């Protein structure tokens, strides 16, 4: 519990790191209706594609400096020396980032979805999809951020972006499935399966990559 609190304390003080991605997400969502005709039908058409891409972008921004500061000030070295479970520490860090950034964005997705579609069932479903997808994207970009730890975060994001494309495709299919009343449970389970694999693998890969950087 202490580690969670300490990570929360660090992130809370870095407004730019957690509030920045949320504001970017809100700005994109607010800007969307302004760029198309004010007809409900048209708004609905491209809304979900934009929603998933906005979540993807926000998660990318949130991981921009996730390890950089700890790398530069020597905290990562102290963690490696003092703990036997570095991957577990990384998993906790990702979780706190998701709680502070991914969860609010998922809840905001519900509000924007409800505002655009006025469909409460679809919007409730969107919360689950947004929660799962934001956690997946976060893990992927954390991996990217670790890869390019001292070479700039854009490079890492570019490397990991293709890994997010299958998730975007499944998200799109899920919305179509629920809109047309097709069974969407398989798609939801597929996303949950992806999430469980990513959650269990990424912290180990990231810890290995960071140790290689420190070496």
């Amino acid at each position, binding site marked *: 519990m*202490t580690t969670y609190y*300490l990570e929360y*304390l*660090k992130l809370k*003080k*870095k407004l730019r790191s957690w509030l920045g991605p949320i504001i970017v997400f809100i700005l994109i969502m607010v800007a969307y209706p302004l760029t198309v005709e004010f007809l409900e039908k048209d708004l609905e058409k491209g809304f979900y594609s934009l929603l998933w891409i906005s979540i993807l972008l926000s998660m990318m921004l949130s991981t921009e400096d996730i390890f950089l*500061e700890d790398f*530069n*000030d*020597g*905290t990562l*070295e*102290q963690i*490696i*020396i003092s703990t036997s479970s570095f991957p577990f520490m990384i998993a906790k860090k990702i979780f706190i980032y998701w709680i502070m950034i991914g969860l609010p964005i998922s809840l905001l997705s519900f509000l924007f979805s409800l505002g655009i579609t006025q469909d409460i069932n679809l919007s409730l479903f969107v919360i689950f999809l947004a929660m799962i997808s934001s956690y997946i994207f976060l893990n992927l970009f954390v991996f990217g951020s670790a890869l390019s730890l001292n070479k700039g975060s854009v490079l890492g994001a570019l490397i990991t972006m293709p890994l997010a494309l299958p998730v975007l495709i499944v998200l799109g299919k899920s919305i179509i499935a629920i809109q047309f009343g097709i069974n969407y449970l398989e798609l939801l389970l597929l996303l949950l399966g992806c999430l469980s694999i990513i959650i269990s693998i990424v912290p180990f890969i990231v810890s290995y990559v960071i*140790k290689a950087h*420190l*070496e």
Partner: protein
Amino acid sequence: MNTKSLIKAENIAYKINENKLFHNLSFSVSKGEALHISGPNGSGKSTLIRIILGITKQTKGAITHNESNNMSYLGHKNALKNYLTVSDNLILLGLNSHEKLNNFLEELALKKYLDVTVANLSFGQQKKLALLRIFLNESNVIVLDEPFVGLDTYTQNVVESFLIKEINLGKALIYTSHINCNIDSKILNLK
């Protein structure tokens, strides 16, 4: 490994690309002993420290740690958060409720800076704050890379007295320093 020996290195070598930084280094550090790693700039002192800590892997040789080893380390980076206050940093270090904290804060003249952001402290004050990690940690091996850099004479004496006391209590100390100090140590000279 000798039961008293906490760290034992045998024929350690390290090279960057094809340049040998050091080779065939053997040493051991036991309870109540200090090892001073000395040598000119670029001789590999910090690298050797990182090898001892397990952060960097040696090219050749073996380093054995006693199972009971619990190391505390302070290197060139202080591992402090510049945007947080001294109090917040003490929370992050898990030292805020340590029973000896107040004594050391007074001894190191840091008590009046508890609400000051670390970025606003001088280099020496930041170093003193980072040293609290060493002072209040319950480790049996203390590893320090240039611990006296940036410290005034009074603080250097405080740090030295503390380290000598810890060695007498049976802890092991491994350190590098270009500044003369009064710690009775074995010397490992890297040329």
